[in-house]
């Protein structure tokens, strides 16, 4: 049994972690923290847990002995309570942004201000099994990428690594309201947020830096909030290499993803779901990757979709936990998704 504590258990990522970990046969959740709800039952604000646990929230600074710390709270990696647990040997899996960027200058550009802990960021292994599985089996600090970054990296990296695309990419991200967390306030009031196409980041989205770091590409990225609670999609416009064919693309993806449990290549000629569509991935740990290639006009668009709280956050973190602790990689992540929905 792996003992796990969830820091920031009351948030949306925290709740998703608990949903996956409480029924996980190889994991015991020893704590979930929240200052706001300290002492209250975790199934109070996470209603899908009703009937499955009697756990209550501990305050953020009261962390028990554990094997793994899952951080779903901004800034938590630097807190004293977390540092103490880490020093006692706990593996750290951080879902927040702080440890994702190895380069402090890049951090400064995108987050403003100095990096709170450059030495920690320097050693963190990116929490993306598709790119770093071997390193993850023994990593002590794991930095799970951002939700749209994960999608874009999984779409771009195989083609970039194979030299099939040019150096520049334009990423257009779309995301549901859970992407801003459970404490978003007035901008997320239902009557305001429903039905929007809110171009909250016309350009310069923070995930540019993560995608560039993982793929070596020069990345420009914008993002729009859409009328959904969960789900994210990225469209990546790239320049195809000379002479590129559809077969080359499929071959490159196949080579990379044939054995991946959670990446599917979806580029079909028929049906309502020809390209990656977030809605059928809600609750899953899948990232569907697809593409559209118009060879005649040299237009190549790579598309990826996932659940921002699933493969885009909590699900991916659980996959990393499984990899790190030597558990079957799909454990706790078996849900296939819903259709219709």
């Amino acid at each position, binding site marked *: 049994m792996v003992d796990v504590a969830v820091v920031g258990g009351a948030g949306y990522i925290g709740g998703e972690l608990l949903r996956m970990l409480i029924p996980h046969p190889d994991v015991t959740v020893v704590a979930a923290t929240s200052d706001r709800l300290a002492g209250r039952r975790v199934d109070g604000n996470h209603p899908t847990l009703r009937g499955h646990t009697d756990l209550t929230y501990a305050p953020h600074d009261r962390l028990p002995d554990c094997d793994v710390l899952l951080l779903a709270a901004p800034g938590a990696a630097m807190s004293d309570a977390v540092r103490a647990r880490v020093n006692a040997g706990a593996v750290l899996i951080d879902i927040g942004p702080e440890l994702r960027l190895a380069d402090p200058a890049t951090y400064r550009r995108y987050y403003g201000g100095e990096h709170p802990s450059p030495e920690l960021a320097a050693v963190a292994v990116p929490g993306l099994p598709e790119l770093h599985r071997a390193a993850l089996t023994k990593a002590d600090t794991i930095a799970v990428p951002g939700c749209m970054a994960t999608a874009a990296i999984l779409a771009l990296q195989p083609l970039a690594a194979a030299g099939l695309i040019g150096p520049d990419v334009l990423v257009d991200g779309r*995301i549901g*309201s859970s*992407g*801003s967390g459970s404490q978003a306030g007035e*901008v997320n009031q239902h009557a305001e947020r429903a039905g929007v196409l*809110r171009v*909250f980041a016309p350009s310069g989205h923070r995930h540019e830096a993560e995608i560039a770091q993982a793929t070596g590409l020069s990345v420009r990225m914008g*993002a729009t909030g859409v009328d959904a609670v969960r789900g994210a999609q990225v469209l990546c416009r790239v320049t195809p290499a000379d002479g590129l064919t559809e077969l080359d693309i499929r071959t490159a993806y196949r080579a990379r993803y044939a054995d991946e449990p959670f990446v599917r290549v979806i580029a079909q000629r028929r049906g309502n779901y020809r390209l990656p569509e977030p809605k059928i991935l809600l609750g899953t740990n899948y990232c569907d990757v697809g593409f559209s290639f118009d060879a005649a006009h040299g237009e190549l668009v790579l598309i990826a979709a996932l659940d921002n709280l699933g493969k885009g956050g909590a699900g991916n973190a659980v996959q990393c936990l499984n990899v790190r602790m030597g558990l079957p990689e799909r454990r706790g992540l078996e849900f296939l998704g819903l259709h219709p929905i």
Partner: protein
Amino acid sequence: MSACPQCGGGISVPESVQLNEILECPECRAEIEVMSVDPLLIAVAPDVDEDWGE
């Protein structure tokens, strides 16, 4: 009618305007501070952009 220092849009400054009063540009919605009344001098107030992110 003054010009917004941020966007060049027209701002009608009330006659009764006072020093350090904050006006709002109708075009870009920048907050404009009255730095001096006579002569009228206005400047963009320090930016406190609201978060709009996800």
